[in-house]
């Protein structure tokens, strides 16, 4: 090239000075730092999220118990002296507890103060006394120091959620209540114990009696239905689409359809369930059966996509070898391809189930949001599930439900972590390089 062809006006001086290089390297470092900052921010927020939940929630696994000397009046509990279980179960222990509280603090008079005094212990304190009496009926007629659940306010006070140093008007627990509880504390009669009720009972309006067992059972039933429907249907359609389907417009349509269904907002599936399962088929509201069906439709695309990927990863040589020794196309799949793809299919299924376990919105649509105290006994009983229980508690005005909500979130996250860990483990353990 001759010099005359390059017009001198367009020649640009390239600055190769140290200063420019420095600037470029600085820009390089800055850019890299942005990346690190983004990752640190994202992970930091994740840490913050989990941190706040654990910090506010671990106390939900504990419950304050108070010990009160209770005179187990034989006249009140079992006037006939028969000691049979039914009589013992039906006796009014709550009023015995109230009587004992009056005896313990005889200086309390006046209706309102007495109601406050009774409020030291839970409404279920009588049940705690009953359980202990039924364990050992020989206590009847004597005075025993028995442990029982405190009310939620006292529980919050003992756990430090209510600050004793605040002015009296600003706290829910008043000075005289603190006085009584400090008397008990001084005697060593206040204790934090493991909160069994949180894991064994259903929902309740009283925070100290509310538990997640009902919701957990509801979740289990719902997931069972989801698994029973979505796993076979998902695997069958994945096998068909991947191994047998002819390439035509119908199968193309199915494929596009599945990809789009995977991205449809979950609440739309709830609307479908409401209109079709409840409206047209007349299935019961709030039932795990319907919830499971809706979630099955929702997780189906996830499972199909994962199963297809797993089937695709099995090399064609396996199929050809099996065909070569005379297997029918279906035998090729059931005897060779599917067993080899199974770990991948299982991984996809577990991830789909984890998704279903954490899903809330579609279940609100089909009425699984009712206040249900009983633990469901079947797939058509009204039930709620763990995430909906969290939603209900989060909406609850009672201050003590905040810690329950956090506790329930911890349980839910624990389940999800176990499921995802299982999926990762399956993938690691059985992943094969062909």
């Amino acid at each position: 090239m001759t010099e005359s062809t390059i017009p001198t006006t367009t020649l640009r001086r390239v600055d190769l000075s140290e200063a420019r290089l420095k600037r470029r390297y600085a820009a390089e470092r800055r850019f890299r730092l942005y990346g690190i900052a983004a990752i640190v921010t994202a992970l930091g927020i994740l840490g913050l999220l989990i941190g706040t939940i654990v910090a506010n929630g671990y106390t939900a696994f504990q419950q304050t118990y108070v010990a009160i000397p209770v005179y187990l009046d034989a006249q009140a509990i079992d006037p006939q002296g028969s000691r049979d279980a039914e009589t013992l179960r039906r006796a009014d222990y709550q009023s015995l507890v109230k009587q004992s509280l009056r005896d313990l603090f005889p200086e309390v008079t006046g209706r309102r103060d007495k109601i406050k005094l009774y409020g030291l212990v839970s409404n279920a304190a009588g049940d705690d006394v009953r359980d202990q009496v039924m364990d050992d009926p020989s206590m009847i007629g004597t005075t025993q120091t028995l442990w029982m659940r405190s009310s939620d306010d006292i529980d919050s006070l003992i756990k430090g959620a209510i600050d004793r140093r605040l002015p009296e008007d600003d706290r829910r627990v008043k000075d005289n209540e603190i006085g009584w509880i400090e008397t008990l504390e001084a005697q060593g009669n206040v204790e934090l114990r493991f909160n069994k009720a949180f894991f064994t009972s259903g929902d309740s309006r009283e925070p100290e009696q509310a538990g997640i067992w009902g919701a957990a059972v509801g979740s289990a039933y719902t997931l069972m239905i989801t698994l029973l429907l979505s796993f076979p249907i998902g695997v069958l359609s994945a096998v068909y689409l991947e191994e047998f389907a002819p390439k035509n417009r119908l199968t193309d349509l199915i494929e596009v359809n599945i990809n789009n269904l995977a991205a449809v907002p979950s609440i739309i599936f709830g609307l479908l369930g409401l209109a079709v399962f409840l409206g047209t088929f007349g299935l019961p509201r709030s039932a795990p059966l319907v919830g499971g069906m809706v979630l099955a439709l929702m997780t189906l695309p996830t499972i199909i996509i994962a199963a297809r990927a797993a089937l695709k990863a099995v090399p064609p040589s396996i199929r050809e070898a099996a065909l070569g020794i005379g297997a029918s196309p279906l035998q090729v799949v059931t005897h060779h391809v599917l067993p080899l793809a199974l770990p991948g299919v299982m991984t996809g299924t577990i991830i789909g189930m984890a998704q279903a376990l954490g899903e809330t919105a579609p279940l609100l649509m089909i009425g699984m949001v009712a206040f249900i105290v009983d633990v469901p006994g079947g797939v058509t009983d009204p039930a709620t599930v763990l995430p909906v229980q969290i939603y209900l508690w989060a909406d609850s005005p009672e201050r003590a439900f905040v810690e329950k909500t956090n506790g329930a979130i911890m349980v839910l996250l624990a389940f999800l972590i176990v499921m995802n860990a299982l999926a990762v483990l399956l993938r690691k353990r059985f992943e094969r390089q062909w």
Partner: protein
Amino acid sequence: MNSLLLIAILLVLSSVGYAFGQRRARVVSGGHPSTLHSRPQYYGLYVALWCGIPSLLLMAAWLIIEPHVAEWLLVSNLPADAQQLSPDRLSLLVNDIENLASGNIVSREVDPVLQAAADGYKAVRQIGNAAMAAAAISLAVLGLAFARRRIAPSLRARNLVERTVSVLMILASTIAILTTIGIVLSLAFEAWRFFARVPITEFLFGLSWSPQTALREDQVGSSGAFGAVPLFAGTLMITFIAMCVAVPIGLFSAIYMSEYASPKIRATVKPMLEILAGVPTVVYGFFAALTVAPFIRNSGEAIGLDVSSESALAAGAVMGIMIIPFVSSLSDDVMNAVPRSLRDGAYALGATRSETIKQVVFPAALPGIVGSVLLAMSRAIGETMIVVMAAGLAANLTANPLEAVTTVTVQIVTLLVGDQEFDSAKTLAAFALGLLLFAVTLALNVVALHVVRRYREKYD
């Protein structure tokens, strides 16, 4: 009889059939299984299918039809004056009788006529259930016997079984299509009924939303306004805030992971980021309502701003955190798919890494990145629990992110949770909103998938 128990019995019968069929096949082969057309297991499966499928189908049909028949019987047995009632009141009465029969709370006084009707209904249901069990079980046994009789060495059991299985597979793969059709039809049908009451132009372009309809004719101030514009404005604002959080964080994470990070760091950081997408949305909602919203409110007040406790900012920011992995994972993948040669070319010209990324890798990966952002956006628009718990209920048409706004999904939930008449304008409005939501997210998804797919074809 309990349906689940019946299903279990039918399944047990099928496995018995499997064992019978297998044994029978061995017997008819006279001890030489090689004379059979298929292996003995296929004869077993053949019997099991004959035993299970017809009986389960019968049971399904029965479960769908029986309540309608029982209800028809109930109505035709009611006294004449009850039958003359208007359809609405008649269905209320029928509802009450059904509740009475199943032992639920009834909304009216129980008189002997009602009690008799309930008892009759209960008896019909019980007879129906028993008949269903009997019919299903006898059909299963019949199928078993029939199939077992047909077993002969020349029976092409494998082909028959395989044909059945492929029919099942085709049926299974049509469920995805049926779901879509079901969604479209149910939403469109209810929405159409809604548009018969509220003109579609008012719904799409109306500026005020207050779905309280009057319970009585003479009630004041509750004529109901169904203009969806404020809802969409609210949805878009929260989505915009979410994208402002998610796109920079997600993109820079993706760039760092695909271009700078060592494989080891990538292998640990990527799953950790994906945890963000795995946390249930109800947890984010709780976090937004209890931690983020008060924080934003307090810091706003500290600098003298008036912040609503249900500000769009809180819900949007938390939603942005949730969708970070949707942006980062897919962007990471598409940037990884940019061929090595492009990068090498840039390095050879003396570009630094960041210059290569900014001027070569990023433009080459742009369509895929746009696709991932669109997918994340459709996720944000359809997200429900975060906004239900952290955003407001009142429909404000505002551009101020510190005020409370409401979204389409929040309104769907508020309109449908709780006991509602199924065909009031309020509940139907929820379906119209659902249809709109479905259409918008579907359009975004189609565009996004299309963009991503086209881009992939370019380098393969």
